[in-house]
């Protein structure tokens, strides 16, 4: 079995293992082992990938495996990775690993919880390795649906409402995607030969501009819904707020990245002319997302809402960067996906842990927690600093790459949009510090909190992994950025060919 397929197989093996588990402990252990293997595998994949590249293998995709699935429709099980997918796989395995430990204490139906969680992760992995639009879409939906049960059963607050809203809105997105994909498929061979779902094959085809313009909005908005594109982001605050910790982590950390990834892997890559022509609309929307999410976060009082709005802002940045259509900005976009993925997972993990102790998420009801739970406090501060783009953490690398890249566009429209987007870093600082100030610093305002304990070992492990992730990328970003950069070649090439100047 090739290494990529095992990313799908291992989750399913883990699930199979979980089915036969007897008690809570076994369940946790099985899940942890399974996802631990997955994490190791991701590391191995990264190493193998870098080695291949270093050895001069410059193929567009590596580890390609192509099995015909539905011959008549030319649907393949076509997998392969470039630097971008490898990076995303790394992200996913870190987050899911941390997620397992963050949900170490799930009491209600733990077996089912882990099964659905891992099922979700398998969808995500599948999505990232797919090069066939059909399987890509299939995995996309696999990733979305378990969410409903995860939020609905194990969530808090108005969980049923949120779960329903999230699912339906995301499925609405996938409805758009479906139409777009079918459009791509039926226009994938204008000369009249065999139609194809293969991303690589379609990327070699020139689709007439009019057709592109018809389908581009479907695909971009479709994926954009998952990427929290304004004004289709409202599932995100409610969904995140109601979701259990690990689910929020996985969702904000990874699932929302599916949107960004899809936007450029499918929408922009395959429909470059339309992207050029219609990009301005979405640039406006994403710029709004960025600034709007940040301002929205200032006013919130619920920790999860704050983070959800912050996610809207950060994910808006991803889409924004994608629409800048140059290598640097797109590298930034991917970096931002990874950075935000780990960061926000960290946040949600911490929020979950804090909530588990104080039983409230309203910042006004808490205060001075740094004193009683220094580990969590410090971790939160680190997460916050990463979020506001402090050098040394991944957020800085990503945002700077985006800004520098975005600034390569010389016209006033792009520049103004960029400057507006850049200004979000101040707003981010405002809400992050506001939370840190109220939540962690100051005096303890509730005597019950005096006796709360600090993080347990598994919580430390969970957050530790994530913090390691953000700092490792923040300190030494070059390899990652180069790896991503290497994967962008074909996309940029295609965009260049399609640009009106060309």
């Amino acid at each position, binding site marked *: 079995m090739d290494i990529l397929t095992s990313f799908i197989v291992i989750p399913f093996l883990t699930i199979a293992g979980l089915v036969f588990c007897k008690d809570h402990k076994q369940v946790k252990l099985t899940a942890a082992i399974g996802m631990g293997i997955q994490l190791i595998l991701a590391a191995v994949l990264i190493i193998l990938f870098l080695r291949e590249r270093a050895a001069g293998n410059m193929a567009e995709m590596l580890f390609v495996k192509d099995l015909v699935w539905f011959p008549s429709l030319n649907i393949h099980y076509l997998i392969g990775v470039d630097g971008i997918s490898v990076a995303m796989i790394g992200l996913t395995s870190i987050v899911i690993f941390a997620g397992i430990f963050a949900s170490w204490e799930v009491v209600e139906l733990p077996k089912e919880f882990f099964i659905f969680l891992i099922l979700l992760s398998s969808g995500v992995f599948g999505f990232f390795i797919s090069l066939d639009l059909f399987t890509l879409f299939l995995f996309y939906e696999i990733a979305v649906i378990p969410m409903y049960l995860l939020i609905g059963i194990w969530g808090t607050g108005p969980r049923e409402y949120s779960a329903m809203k999230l699912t339906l809105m995301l499925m609405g997105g996938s409805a758009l995607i479906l139409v777009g994909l079918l459009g791509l498929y039926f226009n994938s061979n204008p000369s009249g030969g065999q139609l194809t779902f293969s991303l690589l094959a379609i990327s070699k085809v020139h689709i007439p501009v009019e057709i592109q313009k018809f389908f581009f909005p479907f695909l971009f908005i479709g994926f954009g819904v998952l990427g929290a594109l304004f004004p289709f982001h409202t599932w995100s605050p409610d969904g995140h707020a109601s979701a259990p910790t690990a689910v929020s982590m996985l969702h904000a950390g990874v699932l929302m990245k599916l949107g960004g990834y899809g936007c450029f892997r499918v929408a922009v890559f395959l429909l470059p002319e339309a992207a050029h022509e219609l990009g301005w609309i979405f640039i406006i929307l994403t710029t709004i997302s960025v600034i709007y999410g940040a301002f929205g976060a200032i006013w919130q009082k619920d920790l999860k809402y704050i983070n959800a709005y912050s996610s809207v802002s950060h994910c808006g940045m991803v889409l924004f960067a994608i629409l800048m259509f140059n290598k640097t900005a797109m590298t930034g976009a991917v970096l931002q996906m990874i950075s935000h993925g780990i960061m926000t997972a960290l946040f949600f993990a911490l929020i979950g842990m804090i909530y588990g102790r104080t039983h409230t998420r309203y910042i006004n009801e808490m205060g001075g927690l740094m004193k009683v739970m220094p580990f969590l406090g410090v971790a939160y501060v680190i997460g916050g600093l990463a979020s*506001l783009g402090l050098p040394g953490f991944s957020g*800085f690398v990503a945002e700077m790459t985006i800004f520098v890249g975005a600034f*390569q566009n010389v016209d006033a429209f792009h520049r103004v949009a960029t400057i507006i987007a850049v200004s979000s870093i*101040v707003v981010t600082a405002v809400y992050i510090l506001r939370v840190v100030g109220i939540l*962690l610093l100051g*005096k303890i305002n509730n005597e019950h909190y005096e006796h709360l304990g600090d993080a347990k070992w598994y919580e430390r492990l969970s957050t530790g992994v994530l913090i390691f992730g953000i700092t490792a990328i923040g300190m030494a970003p070059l390899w990652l950025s180069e790896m991503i950069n290497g994967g962008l070649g074909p996309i940029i090439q295609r965009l260049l060919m399609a640009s009106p100047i060309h």
Partner: protein
Amino acid sequence: MINFGYTVWIVLIPLFLFILIGFFGHKFKPIVSGIIGTSGLFASMAISYFTAYQYFFVLPKVGETFVKVIGFETTWLRFTEKLVIHLGVLLDPISVMMLIVITTVSFMVHLYSIGYMEGEKGYMRFFSFLSLFSFSMLGLVVATNIFQMYIFWELVGVSSYLLIGFYYTKDTAVAASKKAFIVTRFADLGFLIGILLLSFNTGTFDFITLTDPKGAAIAQGSGIMFLGLSTMTWSMIFIFMGGAGKSAMFPLHIWLPDAMEGPTPVSALIHAATMVVAGVYLVARLFPIFHFSAPVALDVVMYVGAFSSIFAAVIACTQFDIKRVLAYSTMSQIGMMMFALGVSGYGEEAGLGFMASMFHLFTHAFFKALLFLGAGAIIHAVHSNYMNEMGGLRKHLPITHITFLIACLAIAGIPPLAGFFSKDEILAASHQKAMWIFILGLIISGLTAFYMFRLYFSIFWGKDQHYHHTPHEAPKVMTIPLMLLSLGAIFAGLLPFSSFVTSDGKPFASHIDMAIAIPAVLVGVIGALTAMVFYRKETNIPEKISGFLGGFYRAAFRKFYIDEIYLFITRKIIFNYVSRPIAWFDRHIVDGSMNGISYVTNEVSGRIKGLQSGQLQTYAWVFVTGAVALALTFIYLWTN
């Protein structure tokens, strides 16, 4: 050629200290982390001195000019082929000078803190943050490119944030730290935009390329025009905005006084000697660009510096919190450095302002650190920040008294102390530029002398206060740094500064122009004497004068209401009129429309349920009508 590779350790040692103390500090006794930190910084300082020696005296000059040397460089991140972030060590006169200042002051502060922070909770946290700050600040000054500078710039900001908020259970400290961070962050936004503009225009981040007067970056011209100013000018203005934020220039100065909530050693190190001058350093670093490509921006530097300086000096005269007085004094001094840069030209004599600014930066570091550490010792002794709760302390704190006096004399520009020389150069430079700015400089000098001696007399003279327990002199570990720094405050001015640090790296001989020195000293003395008259003994003159000045005094006392304006903008405008409506809009309009769709669907579903009436004949009717209608429609459609 000398290999300067070892200089990277100057920067790295503090980083290791930070990691060591931060992660493992709680494993051993608190004092250990203090000792580790201090000795580490001592090593760093030693290397810096050695570097300075090598750079200034061993390294051969090229054409009489100090060359810029890249001691160490590694690629950190690559944006495009040309835009690459390196991390490295750039050695040139100003960075070497800064290395000395920073490591020295930092070492002193470390040493001092061992005593000052004794018994505090979070002792090791304090030292780890101090190390982090030292690391960031050193990284900033040795930056080889503007992006590295930005990186460390941000890190400096966050260390400052962490240290201001050191007493995190104190609400004011938390608020102050937040304010400091956000205000500087806002300024950094400008810096970042400036970097983006600059780098895009010139295609490089690299300082050497950027600042080479004959290099491509400057020769390329100033770019397209926008709103009457060239891109280059805009970018420099934006970059200066970053500098202004960090250096607490008006109107971004509001964080600095509040930052005094941090422990006093921190104020000494960060908010007096090193971090706050980063803005000055930044402008100095990019000075050739300012000068050649963006003279308008340089004028802005001058105006802002000058205004901030006088503005702060006036406020300083009215404050009672000794640390705040010192903070405004810092702001005022930095303002002077700024306008010195602003008035400067390029080249040997023409670049006098540049030299003077750097010189003042250098000397100021010593005496201002000394002042703060002294203030720390005082606060340590009397447990109060307010000068009206002090008096007659000269008997209790003899060493502190002496060193404090030295520092006051130095800052007031009394020869032959350090401040005299540097300030004299500044005044000389501004005299070259314009008369009004020279006069302004004189006024500031006078005010400086006044408020410093107001401080001095109020604390050490005046009437004896009744203290809860008798104040006593600080331990050795605190007084030794005071004494060492006072040596600096006395002698630093005697250095032939212009033979080391100049605008273009070519040394020249500076001299003291009596026509400028005499009035300068005179106003200093007058200021000091006035203060003596007012405050040496308890008198009612100050009240009279403040009564006489009335509204102006109140305005100055309330810091010209800048804080209130800020509060109004942030609380009222941003919070209430931007963020809150957005949150509302999001909940009700955006989300509402999504919910609305589902509501409408649900409602329609409820409404049409009636169609399913359970009546067989209704069904049949619909059936027949449906068939007939369909037939009608399609016959119509397909026969026309």
